[in-house]
């Protein structure tokens, strides 16, 4: 009763104070609401770039595995390619199903390598690849076999540690070299690899482990990938068997 009857205007002051606070709160809220409603950011799931890189890597691994399996089973080139194709078809079918579950389509096709010449002795096996490249480092012992089918100028194999040894290949044919060192590991590099094509095989011990580096062919594999955002057709050369 006292408050209502009181005419000293303190009730009015209180009301004015509450209105002022309310006004400040409303202004801040209003401001942030306008800001939010004006924002134009939409969501959306973009495929990660790693997804495409992963696809390339698993296809490379499978192509190499299929090649190794097909050559291990023996037989002529046609039989080998048929075995290779069977494994790749199986892989392609499974891969398509797996990607379809994520709303993406994948298709892989590969070339017939039976009538294809051996690869260039460059880093990626193509004529435009890097000509001077290191095949492996920190080697204790190695058995190198190079089968040169096409030769067009100087091609060398360089064995380098504290000293340097250059093996000159001056014609087509099969060449084998065995090298070992007790405590001065060396690196094996190809020099002017674009000048020759053929296949190579290296086995031995590097960094305390057995290693194999070998290449017969470079198989061009075409991948078609399609997701909600990205559509692409890529042709990538994979060197086989390693």
């Amino acid at each position, binding site marked *: 009763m006292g408050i209502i009857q009181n005419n000293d205007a303190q009730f009015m002051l209180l009301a004015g104070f509450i209105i002022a606070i309310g006004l400040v709160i409303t*202004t801040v809220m209003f401001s942030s609401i*306008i800001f939010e409603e*004006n*924002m134009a950011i939409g969501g959306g799931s973009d495929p990660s*770039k790693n997804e495409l890189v992963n696809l390339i890597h698993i296809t490379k691994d499978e192509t190499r595995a299929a090649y190794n399996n097909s050559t291990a089973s023996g037989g002529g080139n046609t039989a080998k390619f048929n075995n290779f194709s069977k494994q790749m078809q199986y892989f392609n079918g499974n891969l398509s199903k797996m990607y379809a579950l994520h709303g993406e389509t994948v298709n892989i096709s590969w070339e017939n390598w039976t009538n294809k010449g051996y690869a260039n002795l460059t880093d990626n096996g193509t004529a435009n690849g890097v000509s001077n490249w290191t095949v492996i480092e920190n080697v204790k012992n190695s058995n190198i076999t190079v089968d040169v089918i096409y030769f067009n100028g100087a091609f060398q194999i360089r064995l380098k540690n504290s000293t340097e040894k250059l093996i000159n290949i001056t014609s087509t044919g099969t060449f084998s070299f065995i090298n070992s060192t007790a405590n001065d590991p060396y690196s094996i590099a190809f020099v002017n690899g674009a000048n020759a094509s053929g296949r190579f095989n290296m086995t031995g011990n590097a960094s305390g482990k057995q290693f194999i580096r070998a290449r017969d062919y470079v198989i061009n594999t075409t991948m078609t990938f399609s997701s909600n955002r*990205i559509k692409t057709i890529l*042709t990538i*050369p994979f060197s086989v068997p390693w």
Partner: protein
Amino acid sequence: MHSKNFLINDEAVSISIGFILMFSVSVLVFTALVLSFYSIYQETEKSAMQASFKIIGSEISEKITTFDMIVNSINSSGGEVNSLEYEFSLPGSIAGKSYTMNITNSPYQIIMESDNGARSVSPFNITINITERKIYSGSENYKFKYDTNNRSIIIDED
């Protein structure tokens, strides 16, 4: 006597004049309030556009960089990109206003602008070329396409 009367007079103004005064003051206060809200709205709209421009610019530059990365990783492995398309969407309008997006190639920048002065520049860095393009808001779906002949990125409407 008169001055004494003036000092003790507590009637101020008549009721009608008092009403007019109070009414005028109320109208003035209300107008000031509306105007201040309007300016707040304008300022908020601009800053919201600015923030949206920054986010959209970063998103688009990230997509261009991804595109460049894919092309480069394929090329470095001796492969060939036969075709590559990367779709992206832009809002038809931001805060109810139209805008422009200018993708330049020297230097590599995405400049987003609007009439109300909101502007944002998002730089990016790629190794392949990109064809310059100015996009006006309205159409919402676009795509980056790889031009295999010129080894460059072109922007096309979807």
